């Protein structure tokens, strides 16, 4: 969910003017997508690129005659300012304005508040990148996770760790967000299921700087754990990693997409060998590499994260649902989305069929090596491996 792209915020706001919209009037042959997203506030670094990517897909599809060649796609983009109250108001307005699909912000509370309104109206909704799998229970069958769920990232990392013959793990969590709190726990559960053992767990607070207590606990384990897993991100992750290495703990360190940032690479020797997951790695010649190039053409700046790609993919999912359903009726679209199986998208494939709204989608595993990020593998985890969501 988290991508440390705050530095890009300036670029994002410069680009919001690209998000020109026209007032949409509900028509039978127009697929209205209502974006209740955060273009300002703390969620803007995630929602904005997602909308940018979606916009590319919408323009492409419209140029080819619309979704399924017959439904022209119109977007109604509204800023909910990273605010839960505002999200519930805006979603209601978008529903009233005839939205066929609702796109929700990248965090649990606004996604639930807005998703429940869409659920009541019988309209499918997608969160840009809220990754808490329990939201499907909180909202209902009309809600779909779009981004890689925490549970999927955690499980994928655990599976890979076991393949590397790592058998003991230490988890570092922060209860301050579900992302930093639950993702390592999911890792731990799958790691245990696959025959590994969790030998300890530490907690930290955002921005605490001094990790000596946590690091000492790890260093005192004899032997040191094979792998230390955390979904901490900047500024906590670099601080933790430096202190861990200087305490002489040379265990493997696994992280999630929160550390998919230039900072991680720039740490030098300290970050050498760090493994992390994200939604996709633009391997040369892959669809994702093609999307990265496309993004650069449209927005005139290189893409540095995977949110735009998952935004693009979301529109492909919607178009596929419209194609299969053959109508824009809410229940038909919902049914069609939930039956999508192995759809090719820019980041790989995506499957909603049999997944209760949490898509099985490709996760890339990457490693820092010699000051660069090296792609290890891209895989779709087996649903049977996923633990119960928290």
């Amino acid at each position: 969910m988290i991508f440390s792209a705050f530095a890009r915020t300036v670029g994002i706001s410069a680009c919001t003017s690209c998000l020109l919209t026209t007032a949409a009037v509900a028509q039978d042959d127009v697929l209205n997508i209502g974006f209740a997203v955060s273009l300002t506030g703390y969620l803007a670094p995630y929602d904005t690129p997602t909308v940018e990517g979606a916009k590319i897909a919408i323009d492409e599809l419209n140029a080819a005659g619309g979704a399924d060649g017959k439904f022209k796609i119109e977007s109604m983009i509204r800023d909910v300012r990273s605010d839960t109250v505002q999200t519930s108001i805006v979603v209601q307005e978008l529903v009233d304005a005839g939205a066929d699909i609702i796109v929700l912000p990248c965090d649990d509370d606004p996604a639930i508040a807005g998703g429940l309104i869409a659920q009541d109206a019988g309209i499918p909704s997608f969160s840009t990148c809220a990754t808490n799998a329990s939201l499907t229970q909180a909202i209902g069958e009309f809600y779909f996770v779009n981004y890689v769920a925490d549970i999927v990232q955690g499980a994928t990392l655990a599976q890979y760790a076991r393949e590397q013959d790592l058998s003991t793990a230490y988890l570092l969590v922060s209860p301050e967000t579900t992302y930093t709190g639950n993702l390592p726990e999911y890792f731990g559960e799958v790691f245990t299921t696959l025959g590994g053992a969790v030998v300890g767990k530490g907690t930290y607070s955002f921005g605490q700087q001094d990790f000596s207590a946590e690091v000492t606990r790890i260093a005192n384990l004899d032997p040191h754990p094979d792998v230390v897993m955390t979904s901490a991100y900047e500024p906590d992750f670099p601080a933790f990693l430096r202190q861990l290495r200087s305490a002489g703990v040379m265990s493997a360190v696994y992280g999630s997409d929160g550390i998919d940032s230039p900072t991680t690479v720039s740490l030098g020797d300290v970050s050498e060998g760090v493994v992390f997951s994200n939604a996709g790695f633009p391997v040369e010649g892959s669809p994702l590499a093609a999307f990265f190039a496309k993004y650069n053409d449209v927005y005139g700046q290189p893409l540095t994260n995977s949110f735009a790609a998952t935004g693009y993919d979301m529109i492909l999912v919607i178009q596929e649902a419209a194609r299969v359903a053959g109508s824009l009726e809410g229940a038909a679209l919902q049914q069609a989305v939930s039956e999508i199986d192995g759809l090719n998208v820019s980041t790989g494939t995506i499957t909603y069929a049999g997944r209760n709204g949490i898509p099985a989608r490709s996760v890339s595993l990457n490693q820092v090596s010699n000051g660069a990020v090296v792609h290890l593998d891209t895989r779709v985890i087996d649903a049977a491996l996923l633990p119960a969501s928290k």
Partner: protein
Amino acid sequence: MKPGVIILAVVCLVIAGLTTVFAGPAISNTVSNFFIVVVLVVGLGVHVGNSGIVSFGHPAFMAIAAYLTAILVLPVARKKALMPNLPDILGDISLNPVVAIMITLIFLALIGGLIGLAISRLNGASATIATLGLLIITHSLLVGGTTFTRGAQAVYGVPKVVTPLIAAGAAIAAIILADWFKYSRWGLVARAAREDAVAAAASGISVQRSRALVFTISIALTALGGGLFALHLGVFSPKEFYFNLTFSLLAMLIVGGGTSTTGAVAGVAIITLLSEGLRRVEPGFDIGGVTVPALFGLTTIGTSLALICTLYLRPEGLMGLKELDDHLTWVRPLRGYKRKNLSRAALSGPKHLRLLEVHGITKRYGGVTALQDVSLALNPNEILGLIGPNGSGKSTFLSCASGIQAFDEGTVQVNGIAMRQSDPTAFAHAGVGRTFQNIRLFSRLSVYENVAAALVAVPGAADAPSIAQILSRVNLAGMDDRIAETLSYGQQRRLEIARALATCPSFLLLDEPAAGMNSTETAELANIICSLRDVDGLGILLIDHDLPMILRLSNRVAVLNEGHLIAVGSPAEIRENPKVTAAYFGERSADQNLEAYTAT
């Protein structure tokens, strides 16, 4: 009920009624939210307005209220799934939302009272910082206290029962309560303490108790808002109640005017209208063939600009200190304040013991001894002049004798009872009134309210003078509605005396009451002081640099020099006392005449 409140209530009802009849769910949602924010900002305004202390901590109480309400109303099955560790007593119940809100209000008022007692000990910025601490602590507890919360995860599934009419009802209740409290005797003394805590204490007001009460009422309203927030939105997590909310609530209060209930409502209305307007043009639009591009962020920029403009152009907010009633020329300000009558037992107390005695007081400031073993008694029916060169310790003596200042050695007894140090409120209740060298009025309150605040704070005999009688006594009759800070200098001095008289004092300590007055004003003041002694039988301690006046009015004169009491006697004796002349002119000029000096 006051007309201004009725007007606000009718406006709220009309908006809610029109919304219910004509508007769709989106507008209803916005309107309900508006009224809930009105409850919250009015609740915050009760604290900021009556205590003068800005609070960053109110969202913390709102959060506790939202969680408590949610826990009480959530269906049992959902609750078990969300918060499996909840104690059975909470886990197995699912209450009616009205009952839940009631319980929430009472619980939060109790918490507010307890925390209010602690915070009321702090002044100004320290109190504000303490509220900031409360916000951060509560946030951490909500994130960490996973028995009663879901940690950082959202609580959801709270029944969404709030309609525009329900929310408007709550807003009206909040406005009525806030307005009633502001003009109640408790609100009045709190506002007096807001203007000048020291003067309020010296006027018999229990500053801490009044602040704690303000905090409690304010938290109760905040709890109402927090509970409704949960029942309106249906989903929330701790981050909803953090700095963002603190600042948006405060911004609305600042734009509207923090010391006015009408201002609080106006602030919410302005910011809501502004952001609702701006967010509709944000996505861009076409006008006459011209396409205006999308400009997301406009809403935030607009509301921030409104805040900055307010701070720049109208720092006290749109309504300033005024309520709607103050703009309605046909509405007379409230005049109902009455003194509490002393019990019969208290009235039949030992009259013969009326005496203010200071025994052997020593007061040191670091290495400097301001007072050295000074003993002096003030009798009824006398004016005791206290003179001495600048820096001789006169004002320090008066502050020690009125409980404002602590001292290092000695005792002060009023009517034979030893007084606790640094407790000016107790001194006022024991019958010691005072004025200040640098005028300390309740500057932004009216003349009437200045006197009324002291009058309601200290009980007195049933036949003690009314506010009108007191004001006419000091020649301020008919000036009731003037704001104290707009009075002339001489009038302000006399108003300070009036305020002291409202506490039914036996002793009146006047610190340079004639300073800065012209000769006419001084003569007028002298008449008042004499009549207080001769008619009312007060004992008056009079400090002034106008020696002819002191020597003319006083029955006895005491002289301080470098912290030592060097002489006490009749004016005639003091005139002749060589030590006194030496103190004023130096040893070598001991033959100079004090009278001649004072005549110049």
